[in-house]
């Protein structure tokens, strides 16, 4: 029956076909096709904003580790990661810290791809203005990411090139805090020349760059420059102003108000889950984080909180539990993430002026924010009084944003004000898992005390 034997070679040929074993993905594209023209450069930049706004970074996690450590929040939930930060028991295995660290570096990585690949794109439809905008945004976001790493963890490894193989970007030692801030400034200077000047609160413009520069100079105590850049933004009063009342920047589904210098936007299909942690179950949340008794008292005090009492509300009897309602848009999840508000620039300028001896100018800036909140003007008259007044003002102005803890650490006041057991808590731990995989973060290279 030899005639059947012919079946065999036919089948063998079929099986050997190399093409049979080549299956292209449909959900993804190969990395070589990632940034090749104007369109893909644009989508990569959108992806960068997406990661910046993701729950691991400004969407939820990074503000959370700041305010959970900031002394005004009580933790009522089950998650020990949040609890530990809240109780100043943060350990190097803390998941929130790891998530923030990871997402910030992912943001940097994406910026690095854009910075490396967008200049190489040849596409007649790719205008210089658009190309510059994408590049400028990438430089700015990288600057913001390194700034956040610096204020959270101190000097860090500066990764400035994209990773294409596992061997890339390894063996890089941690930079000093000064060098990290220097890199932030360098990127901001580059961004400043590339980004557009027209107002856009959800993307990066010159004003956005200036605002972050003002904050950077405040952290590096270059008071004159801090004042200068704060002024450059504040002086554009038609576009940036303290909205009245306080709640106008967030209540009634407001987005991108004149209060915001940089605000990350969310849509129904790209949601912000922040409200889940704050709202009580009756409103669809878990209320695992809530304002503590002290903060409730401050916000409800007409002479201190003023109309900032709109930040909190109480559940129905008999519970009568206070909850935060800065993030409240359930189920849409469209609460913005507030990165830089104009109120902060007033505080920056106030502090910078006070440090330079301009006490009246300082007081005026402080009282501008107080007036908007409907509280009596401060009468602080000395440098120390003004600094103390600013410290207290930030507590009620930014209780649910990324602010108070970092400023208390910056001014060296955190241990006193927050009753911290030890100053090693001024820096977050280098995540334990990272100390295991990266020798440059292990042992003495890790943050001490953890």
């Amino acid at each position: 029956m030899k005639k059947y034997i012919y079946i065999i070679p036919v089948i063998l040929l079929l099986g050997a076909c190399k093409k049979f074993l080549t299956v292209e993905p449909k959900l993804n594209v190969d990395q070589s096709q990632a940034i090749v023209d104007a369109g893909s450069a644009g989508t990569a930049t959108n992806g960068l904003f997406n990661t910046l706004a993701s729950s691991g970074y400004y969407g939820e996690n990074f503000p959370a580790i700041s305010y959970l450590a900031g002394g005004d929040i009580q933790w009522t939930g089950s998650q020990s990661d949040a609890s530990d930060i809240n109780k100043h028991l943060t350990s190097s295995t803390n998941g929130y810290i790891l998530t923030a660290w990871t997402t910030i570096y992912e943001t940097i990585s994406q910026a690095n791809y854009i910075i490396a690949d967008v200049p190489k794109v040849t596409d007649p439809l790719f205008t210089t203005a658009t190309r510059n905008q994408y590049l400028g945004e990438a430089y700015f976001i990288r600057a913001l990411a390194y700034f956040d790493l610096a204020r959270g963890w101190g000097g860090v490894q500066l990764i400035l090139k994209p990773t294409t193989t596992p061997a890339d970007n390894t063996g890089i030692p941690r930079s000093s805090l000064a060098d990290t801030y220097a890199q932030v400034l360098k990127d901001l200077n580059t961004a400043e020349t590339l980004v557009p000047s027209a107002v856009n609160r959800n993307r990066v413009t010159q004003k956005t760059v200036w605002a972050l520069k003002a904050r950077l100079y405040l952290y590096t105590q270059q008071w004159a420059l801090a004042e200068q850049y704060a002024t450059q933004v504040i002086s554009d009063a038609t576009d940036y102003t303290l909205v009245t009342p306080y709640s106008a920047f967030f209540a009634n589904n407001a987005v991108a108000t004149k209060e915001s210098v940089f605000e990350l936007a969310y849509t129904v299909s790209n949601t912000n889950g922040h409200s889940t942690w704050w709202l009580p179950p009756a409103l669809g949340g878990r209320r695992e984080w809530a304002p503590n008794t002290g903060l409730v008292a401050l916000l409800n005090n007409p002479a201190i909180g003023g109309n900032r009492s709109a930040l909190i509300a109480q559940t129905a009897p008999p519970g009568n539990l206070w909850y935060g309602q800065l993030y409240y848009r359930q189920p849409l999840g469209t609460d913005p993430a507030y990165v830089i508000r104009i109120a902060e620039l007033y505080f920056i300028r106030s502090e910078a002026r006070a440090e330079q001896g301009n006490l009246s100018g300082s007081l005026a800036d402080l009282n501008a924010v107080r007036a908007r909140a409907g509280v009596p003007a401060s009468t602080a008259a000395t440098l120390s009084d003004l600094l103390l007044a600013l410290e207290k003002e930030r507590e009620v102005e930014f209780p649910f944003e990324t602010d108070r803890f970092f400023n208390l650490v910056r001014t060296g006041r955190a241990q006193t004000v927050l009753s911290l057991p030890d100053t090693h808590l001024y820096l977050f731990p280098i995540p334990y898992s990272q100390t295991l995989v990266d020798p440059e973060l292990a042992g003495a290279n890790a943050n001490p005390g953890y």
Partner: protein
Amino acid sequence: MEIFTRKKKLKKYIRPFAILTLFIIPYLVKAQTTTPLINSTLDGLVLDSLTKEPVAGAIAHIKGTTHAVATDVRGRFNFVTGQKFPYTLIITYLGYKTKEIIADGSPITIKLAETLNQLNDVVVVAYGTQTRKSLTGSVSTVKVDDIRDKPQATFEQQLQGQAAGLQISASTGVPGDSMFIRIRGTTSINAGNDPLYVIDGVYVNSSSLQTITTEGQADNPLSDINPADIESISVLKDADATAIYGARAANGVILVTTKRGKRNTAPKVSLNTYFGAAWAPKLWDLVTGPQQAEIINTMYKNSEADAIAAGNATAIAQYAVQPFRALTDNPTASPAPRGLPQDQQTYDRLHDAFRTGFLQNYDGSISGGNDKTTYYIGAGINTQQADLKTNDFRRASFKVNIDQKINDIFTIGTSNSLSQTYRTNARVGDGPQGGVLQSALHTPTYLPEVNADGSPARWAGFDNLDVLLNNTNMHSTSDRLISNFYLEAKIAPDLKFRSSWSIDYNTYNEYQYWDSLTIIGIANHNLGTSSISTNTVWSDEQTLTYSKNWGKHTFGVLVGNSLEGTTTANTTANGTNFPNDSYTLISSAASTTASATEAEYRLSSFFGRVNYNYDEKYYAEFNLRADGSSRFGANNQFGYFPSAGVAWRLKQEDFLKDVAVVNDLKLRGSYGLTGNQNNINDYASRGLWGAGANYQNNPGTLPTQLANPNLKWESTRQADIGVDASLFNSRLNVTADVYDKFTSNLLLNLPLAVSSGFSSILENAGEMSNKGIELNITSTNISAEHFKWTTNFNIATNVNKIVKIPSPIVAAYAAERMVQGLSMYTFFVYKQLYVDPKTGNAVYDDARHDGGTLKPTANDIEADGSALPKYTGGVNNSFTYKNFDLNVSFNYEIGNKVYNNNAYFLEGGGTRDANRAIDTRQLTAWTTPGQITDMPRLTALGDNYTISPTSRNIEDGSFLRLSNANLGYKLPHSLTNKIGVSSIRVYVSGTNLWLLTKYRGPDPEVNVSSSPTVLGYDLGTPPIPRTVQIGANVTF
């Protein structure tokens, strides 16, 4: 009339192996038709000598002629022949001793005795069958009769304790959920540890398609298969038996053969049914409301005292006022007063969540055949309610197997199983929202179920239990077709070609709807999700087999190739913001989102096998498979998997031939390589960017994966030495194996420094070792006229060790870590050494050796046992007395640890305050100096209850379970014959009837997650139910 029973040394060509025999019959019958002369007519009846049951399908053959017939379903046969009485009949039937009897007149009744000898049992192996005596590899077979009628949704669960080296651990009490299955240990971390399942030649998907979370185990796709249709199950364990499946064989292979009709038999109808009940034999013990109040008050009091001692002003203020105080006592202080402890009520949610579930099963089949065609048609309906409410399982299945001989050369056949499995699901396991068991177990007992205004009360992030029990709307439907078509051509007497085409097609359709009373519903103004997944596995295989005898030399060759593809796709639609609870479909939602995914991978393979034996004394076998996978990059696309096995039947040697006590003795040895690439992403070797990272409704992209063009197969080399002995007239059969499995090139998601922008990359980087011993003893203890007692005892031990891993990996549940030098599923905890009787404080092991002056840090976390058992196995006894039969099966695991994560939450020393219920064991906490206890003093300060995980929650999970008992009675044949039924058996049976364990939770056989890196994690998992059922098996 019996003349004698001769122990016949069966030659290969007449061994009673069904298919071969059936092949021969038509020729025999055909030969007979040329003999028209009729000299005698004989009516015969063949019965089982012990049970007196008719034996259907036995072959009666007149000695010295080619004339043979088969018995019908009532055991009857009839000869109309040219032979004159007396003549000698030879009766053969698989599993029975061949009998010769002189026929001298009609009618005649012949009693066949079951053979105890397993040597000639046919064992299904890769691409064929072999007799047990000729096996060179390690293969366990499970007699389906021994496990029938177990009210379990999945055939795998019925295999528990049935085969040495096959570890099967149920993870939850929810019917049809996935299980933990290992053949000879855990070989992989990422690439899957499930064996390869082949059902009638179809490669069957065993990975769940479920996408809508039930927060714990996933649905098990193998529960789509009706166990009643299964004829036999082979478990292939060593390299010799498995290597021909190459790249997917490292975790062993389970071959399932379904029932087929027998040639020349009258239609046999078989009906089975049972009804039963299932309930949880043990639940948790929670404290009462007043007890919880006292515990929390004590915690406040102690914490305040500790705070004062430490001078911690914040804590002093925080714990100054105890919450359970009179409502008028300091009403404005925080926390607000909740009333005195003795005024608290106790609300039992736990028992509300459980029920006695109803089980029922109906299945029936008809099978038979003529000389050219055989058929098996089966159908079944099975419904099961879990012990935990709202989890229901229903399966309807339909089965058709047909074989058709076209002519002397060609035979075609097909196997088809069509089923629909419907489940109503509930969230069990982890996660507070929507979790039925979490809500029932973890909500503090003093908190009422309804608010003062009558609305459902929700506490501590948990849903209201009544709302969940009445409003949970989660269900899934799995439609499954498992189908094979083959063509066989007998090209020459010794050469056979076979082409086999298979498909496993599964559509999995899920829906969930959370209404306005559930937390998820509130958060989303109701939420609906529809998810439709499809999975298609197709394969096309051709094989050519050749076998030849030259005197004492027997030689066989098999070559083949195989093409295979798997496509998975999913479409998910999500709706939020519904008008009200009456609108439950996504079209009614104000906001909708949707997504679709699709992935495919392909395998192209060539394989071959050569086997040889000399005089049935020396055996050798060699296998090779080459597999190419689209999952791997060009550099390493093909993997080669050879194996060799040898066997020596000492019984055939002169020195043993006359030793009566030894009926057979065989030594086996094998060595080979197998591969693994399951569970990894279809595009794992590629550098990829993905989309969906949108901003302001503009599409966004981002890098998702680093490329690794060198990615390749995990490869497992295995050496096996085994012995098979049959002693004392084959009444004692012993199989023992020693094996050494070593897996290299483990596919690991190696953690990268996240500063690179990537958390991990898949690389071949680790090594894992499994060494073990298996022992299987089957003994016929008593075999008398009316009474038979057989025992099967099996035990296996496996030592697992992660030999090489670049850096430790923390499992999906963080108390388990994978660390070089330790076994998989090792728990890492703060080890509590003791509770200081003077202070009541927990003293933890200072693994860091810093003198215990600091708070225990992450570095003090140390290994404390593994969730892998040291020994697993089963003891199965079966008794037959006249018409009664009794099966009693035990299974056991010894030496495994369980992380009692429920206890972590429920024994928080009161520090969880109003957020969690409290277990009664908390009442043993230290209170007075001198007290010896392992439950430290209640305080929120210090380390007593503030660090986790601790060894307090690591418990011994060893158990011995009476997994099944089945007592049956066969109605007398004389009675059933009158009503035209050949057999009626009624039975009462039960599962999980008794459990011996030290574990404090309801059941140590638990696992919260189907993640391959998690085992023995008890969190919100419903316990395995106890069931009792009555049933009947009828054939006619």
